[in-house]
């Protein structure tokens, strides 16, 4: 069976240990040197970066997250052993792990490290699809001749370089499509290297729960449960048309995923689909003035980012999370897309008013989606809002002032609420 030593990158045919360096760090698989779609996922990325920069933290449980009311964004593996998980409310995490060192995220630093990892990946292939700062799909199909090594060797070399040069570890999932590669990278964390071959795909998926599918959350899971679908083997019994009738477009996808089929390409420039921003309050609030100020600031932030990318949205979304963690989402389609803070704010504000008094809230978010180029937006003013043209002119003017004198140079009074 083809095997690879992950320590010295030596390829060989037999044995539980590497014949060259005697390391036990060996991955053997019949399809090891023919598979070429990979998912690389850094291990506890934010925490690893913090530990790298401060060796005193190495043996301590470290949690990265925001504020008293925030949630865990990353927990190091020591904290994970104690039961801390990402997205867990901070108070709960601290109950499980009172001696944890809690650090606020330093996104700029993580983005810097992420860019360096990206550079290393670019040495392997141009077909990289980043999912976030710390994970990406890589398509190494057809690169074996160029590199003189099969993809598996190059990937093992990548994670070794990341560890040696950047001090962060990552796990590799190698398979024949994105869906399986993503599952594989999670099988053997941290510093893992998992392979799911074509031959074993059906057997591998058979007993696995469908919630393994990326994108199947609680709501989807509940729908699937109702249909008696818990494992991939349950899906195999369904006809394609029935799945489509019951679940719509996602039904088609489920049909193929259950068979280990995923034709999505690793696309280097996955287009931006939405721009959004949200904030969690220090204390739950239903104060309309305070919430209004938040809606404005969020709208302005979304608008700034849309303007920076020359994009505009045709759908505005308002998200509210109540004290009991239930979410409310309201969205509205605009006839004429927008990137203007004023229109995003007014639209979100109308959605907020339509929700009525359902507070107090712990989180509020504003976003735009169904994105179009800015040339196709803000071109048909509202007949019933004759002041809009003047406000839009004022916004463009203050944008110009902020571009020249800094973001704080001019602000709406509303943003101080």
């Amino acid at each position: 069976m083809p095997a690879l030593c992950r320590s010295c990158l030596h390829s060989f045919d037999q044995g539980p240990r590497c014949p060259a360096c005697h390391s036990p760090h060996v991955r053997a698989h019949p399809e090891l040197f023919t598979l070429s779609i990979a998912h690389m996922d850094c291990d506890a990325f934010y925490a690893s970066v913090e530990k790298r920069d401060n060796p005193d933290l190495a043996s301590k449980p470290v949690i990265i997250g925001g504020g008293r009311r925030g949630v865990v964004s990353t927990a190091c593996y020591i904290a994970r052993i104690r039961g801390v998980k990402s997205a867990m409310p901070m108070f709960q995490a601290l109950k499980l792990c009172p001696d944890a060192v809690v650090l606020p995220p330093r996104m700029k630093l993580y983005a810097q490290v992420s860019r360096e990892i990206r550079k290393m990946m670019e040495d392997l292939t141009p077909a990289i699809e980043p999912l976030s700062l710390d994970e990406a799909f890589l398509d190494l199909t057809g690169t074996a001749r160029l590199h003189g090594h099969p993809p598996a060797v190059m990937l093992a070399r990548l994670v070794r370089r990341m560890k040696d040069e950047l001090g962060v570890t990552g796990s590799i999932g190698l398979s024949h499509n994105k869906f399986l590669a993503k599952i594989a990278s999670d099988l053997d964390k941290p510093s893992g290297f998992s392979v799911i071959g074509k031959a074993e795909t059906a057997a591998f998926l058979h007993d696995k729960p469908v919630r393994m599918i990326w994108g199947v959350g609680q709501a989807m899971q509940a729908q699937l449960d109702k249909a008696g679908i818990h494992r991939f083997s349950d899906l195999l019994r369904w006809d394609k048309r029935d799945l489509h009738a019951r679940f719509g477009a996602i039904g088609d996808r489920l049909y193929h995923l259950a068979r280990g089929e995923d034709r999505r390409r690793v696309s280097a420039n996955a287009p931006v689909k939405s721009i959004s921003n949200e904030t969690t309050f220090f204390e739950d609030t239903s104060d309309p003035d305070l919430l209004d100020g938040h809606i404005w600031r969020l709208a302005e932030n979304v608008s700034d980012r849309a303007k920076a990318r020359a994009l505009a949205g045709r759908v505005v979304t308002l998200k509210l999370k109540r004290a009991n963690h239930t979410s409310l989402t309201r969205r509205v389609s605009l006839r004429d897309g927008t990137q203007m803070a004023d229109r995003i704010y007014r639209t979100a504000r109308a959605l907020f008013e339509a929700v009525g008094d359902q507070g107090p809230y712990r989180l509020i978010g504003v976003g735009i989606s169904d994105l179009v180029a800015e040339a196709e937006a803000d071109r048909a003013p509202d007949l019933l809002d004759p002041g809009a043209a003047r406000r839009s002119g004022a916004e463009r003017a203050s944008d110009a002032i902020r571009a020249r004198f800094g973001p704080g140079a001019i602000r709406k009074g509303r943003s101080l609420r």
Partner: protein
Amino acid sequence: MKFSIERGALLKAVAQAQSVVERRNTIPILANVLIEAEGADVHFRATDLDIEVVDRAPAQVERAGATTVSAVTLHEIVRKLPDGALVTLTDDSAAGRLSVAAGRSHFNLATLPKEDFPVMASSEYSSNFSAPAPVLRRLFDKSKFAISTEETRYYLNGVYMHVAESDGGRVLRCVATDGHRLARIDADLPEGAGEMPGVIIPRKTVGELRKLLDNDDTQIAVSVSETKVRFATPDITLTSKVIDGTFPDYTRVIPQGNTRRLEVDASEFAHAVDRVATVSSERSRAVKLTLEEDKLTLSVNAPDSGAAEEELAVAYGDERLEIGFNAKYLLEIASQVDRENAVFLFNSSGDPTLMREGNDTSAVYVVMPMRV
């Protein structure tokens, strides 16, 4: 309850009822039509809690009574029965079934108790008047295209019917707008309508009302209160809640000082717009109008799909003007013109444009330009 009725009369009554009934219902009885037989008439009543329609049809009533049955199923059955058939409906309240028999066809439908059927509370109407069907038809047909579907501005989801001043006289006026275009249609004020409160009649009600207005000779009895509106013919009574909101002050939206006058054959114009818009991008549907002396050039330039241009001979004597519009909006207002030429009054490429038929100010349309 037992009665016999001619298939044609039954179909007409049930068709009106089933169109009011919402297709998706969480309350089962709202999917039903209430059938009440008494004397020489049968009443068919349906509601979605906002609109109630009552249809009266002559029948041979053997045994008076009432029951409710699925409106859609009954409609489908009656539709499929042969023309001219005599249909006998017999209610077996003990079994909870309604039997529908015609010739050799026989159906048994599940019923729900008539006591559960919600009947709209009657209310006091502050204004009652009568208007010929063609007058109401014109008011609503020419305005309804501009009704908004935007839920956040729910007060635009209908036609605003009210009494207005126009050229010193008082008129019955319908206005609809979605913020992109606006229609303002006037009719002579019917006797007794002077004190009518302004009401916003919801889109669905406008659609249902239209079915009452087909016959030119019908007089429609209109009753209006602050919260409800009722339209009645001798056979059909349509009652609807009105939208609880304030219609915006549309008068300031209608341009007064637009002086650049373009006169064009409406149908030629509409066809040309339709042709050039074929290549416009699916989303924006933007068309550019270039006005020069007695010449109008319509053009579309969509980087992704292509370009198109067409020239029209028109009457125009002002300075050159370039202005962009959504092709769909232009087509919709142009299709309202049926007798004379369309007259457009422009100001600048950023200001609302007014359109009317010849010099007739009883129907005016405003459309907002878009940047092209």
